[in-house]
């Protein structure tokens, strides 16, 4: 497969995952912030923006929501992510199934044709839902119309690296609200909403309740979103998919230097597989999450160095 094709498939998938994540985060937080005090609301959106690594210039709640939904200059905005994903798909149109292209194209036009007054009139919720469902549909179509070959594995790597990154960034900003001694306690009322919001931002509320009942404890929330091997939005689950897909890519390309990316993915997975939440919390959750994000970055870099932007003379020598 051409390196350019791998590059486009990887980013198509990453951008779409990012759009979906932003949509879910905004939907949950917008609804929850409606009945908060202005100070609590400001702090909440500060955290949301920090977790997305985004800035929206001097805006109120409505400005922030609009900015994150539509602003083309804001690389985390939903509209910008979907436009990018569609452009990536367009570049490799003959490499993906017709059904996939039609779906991402449709989603792009639905988002682009939403004007801002209609957005507020029809409730922002229905817009965010449209984006989420559009992205889910695309993933479903991808999984049911494509061969699970190298191309599909690059799509998987893009999607789950983005997910691992987003979930850990979200956890990190969320846990800044707690003072150290509160971590092991059942949450106080004013934190309760925040942690439900966190779980819902990862569609994890119901799954969490099934595992731990509705007794919301920060430590358990962290354990569930970080270390649960079965829940598809946990970091551990993502690490497993990344490792498997990178092994599959390594096998099918026969790249001599495939080892580094696989080793990094294996290390990340092992750290999460054998991690103990009490130790992580006792030690330093933030530096642990920062290390996960750093490792995601390293995996990204090594995928690029191995498969996409490798120097030509090294490839010729081998």
């Amino acid at each position, binding site marked *: *497969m*051409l*390196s*350019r094709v*791998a590059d486009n498939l990887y980013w198509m998938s990453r951008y779409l995952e990012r759009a979906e994540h932003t949509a879910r985060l905004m939907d949950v937080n917008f609804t929850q912030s409606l009945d908060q005090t202005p100070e609590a609301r400001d702090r909440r959106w500060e955290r949301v923006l920090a977790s997305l690594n985004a800035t929206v210039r001097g805006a109120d709640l409505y400005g922030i929501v609009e900015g994150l939904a539509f602003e083309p200059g804001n690389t985390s905005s939903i509209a910008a992510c979907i436009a990018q994903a569609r452009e990536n798909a*367009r*570049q490799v*149109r*003959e490499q993906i199934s*017709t059904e996939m292209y039609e779906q991402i194209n449709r989603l792009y036009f639905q988002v682009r044709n939403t004007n801002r007054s209609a957005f507020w009139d029809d409730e922002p919720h229905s817009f965010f839902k449209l984006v989420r469902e559009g992205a889910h549909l695309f993933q479903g179509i991808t999984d049911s119309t494509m061969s699970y070959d*190298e191309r599909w594995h*690059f799509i998987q790597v893009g999607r789950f690296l983005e997910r691992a990154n987003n979930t850990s960034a979200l956890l990190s900003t969320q846990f800044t609200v707690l003072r150290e001694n509160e971590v092991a306690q059942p949450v106080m009322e004013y934190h309760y909403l925040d942690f439900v919001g966190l779980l819902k931002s990862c569609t994890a509320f119901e799954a969490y309740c099934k595992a731990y009942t509705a007794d919301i404890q920060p430590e358990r929330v962290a354990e569930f979103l970080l270390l649960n091997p079965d829940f598809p939005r946990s970091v551990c689950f993502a690490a497993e998919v990344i490792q498997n897909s990178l092994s599959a*890519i390594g096998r*099918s*390309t*026969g*790249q*001599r230097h495939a080892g580094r990316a696989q080793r990094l993915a294996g290390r990340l997975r092992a750290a999460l597989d054998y991690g103990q939440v009490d130790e992580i919390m006792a030690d330093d959750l933030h530096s642990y999450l920062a290390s996960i994000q750093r490792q995601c970055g390293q995996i990204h870099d090594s995928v690029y160095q191995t*498969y*996409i932007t*490798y120097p*030509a*003379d090294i*490839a*010729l020598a*081998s």
Partner: protein
Amino acid sequence: MFATEQQVRPHYQSIYERLNDMTADELDRRQQAANLAFLSQGITFTVYGRDEGTERVFPYDLLPRIIPAHEWATIEKGLTQRITALNMFLRDIYHEGKILADKVIPRSLVYSCRHYRREMRGVHVPRNIYVSVVGTDLIRLEDGSFAVLEDNLRVPSGVSYMLANRSVMKKVFPNLFGSYGVRSVDQYGQALLSTLRALAPAGRPDPNIVLLTPGVYNSAYFEHTYLARQMGIELVEGRDLLVHDNVVYTRTTGGLKRVDVIYRRVDDDFLDPLAFRPDSMLGVAGLINAYRAGNVALANAVGTGIADDKAIYAYVPRIIRYYLGEEPIINNVETYLLDDEKERRYVLENLDKLVVKAVGESGGYGMLIGPHSTAAEREEFRARIIAEPRNYIAQPTLALSQAPCFVEGNFEPRHIDLRPYILYGDQVTIVPGGLTRVALKRGSLVVNSSQGGGSKDTWVLYE
């Protein structure tokens, strides 16, 4: 379709009867079905200069154009002869230049051509094949014979429409089509692949063949993806290729992979920023050196544009006689060369009756159509011709033949031409059919897709 006002030409008889039996509604329904098939398959071309909705369906006319076997046999022979001679001409021009030494063609005419490539002097091309893929535009004259209007020897396009028109036709009129005895065109992809394979450098028994496209923003991008899929070869852009030690590679996830043959749909000018336009982002630095070293084959070769220059066109009958010692089977349209003093005088006196074309232009631009022109336009062209006679040719105003088309619920006559596609590899292959282009505007003579043209399926019959 009609020989005279009332008399249907024999090979159209059966379709004429069938169509007479159909109601306008039924025809309309089939037209809608055809349009939908094009749209859902994404068979579109790009219109430049607009931000939104840049992809358009190429208008498709429901009624086929039918060519009986004996007419096709002449076309096939004539085109084979013409391509063989033009290919020999190209080899000669870039090597010994015998035809110039023998003064059959003026040296100045060749060397002043914008598409002449000095870089190709003395370069050996695989099997001495310069033009592997050719699209030649034919028109039918009043006496019923075909004549060549133009040769396209650089990067001819449109073949995907020939194939797509056929597949839609089979879906929309299965019974009519099945009963007619129409020769198949579906083997084109296969034939193109073996043509390209024949160009592979020596010692590369299982050549890696790629199709080089300028990218998604090119007007023919659909065709590039379509042909790549049909042949099962990789569709690449300039940035996917790199040259090292005069060998071309694609950058793949599995490392660098050597490339042996490039079917390039990029013009000469943009192929290699080191050899031609330095600002080209579409090409590959070093490609021409690898090509000269014989490590990679290009189809078509570089510099073939010299042979489809409109002024050289006038000499093609002489080229055929010179290299093959035969009379041309398909004639040219009569053409006046304006740097010949006698012909120029005639043209300047008769500007109101003639068509004047700039030699470097295509797509229906830079033309004076005498009978439709104003005195001011004729004066302007007179001045231009006198200033630069080499840049213009003149031809009599032709009555392009017409065919009935289904326009807004009625059958109306429209002007048409025909572009068959010729492949030159191990041997010359012409897939029986071609792209019939239609000037869909009433009375218009311009069939180019950029200027409101459409197309028809072209049926070549077994007998």
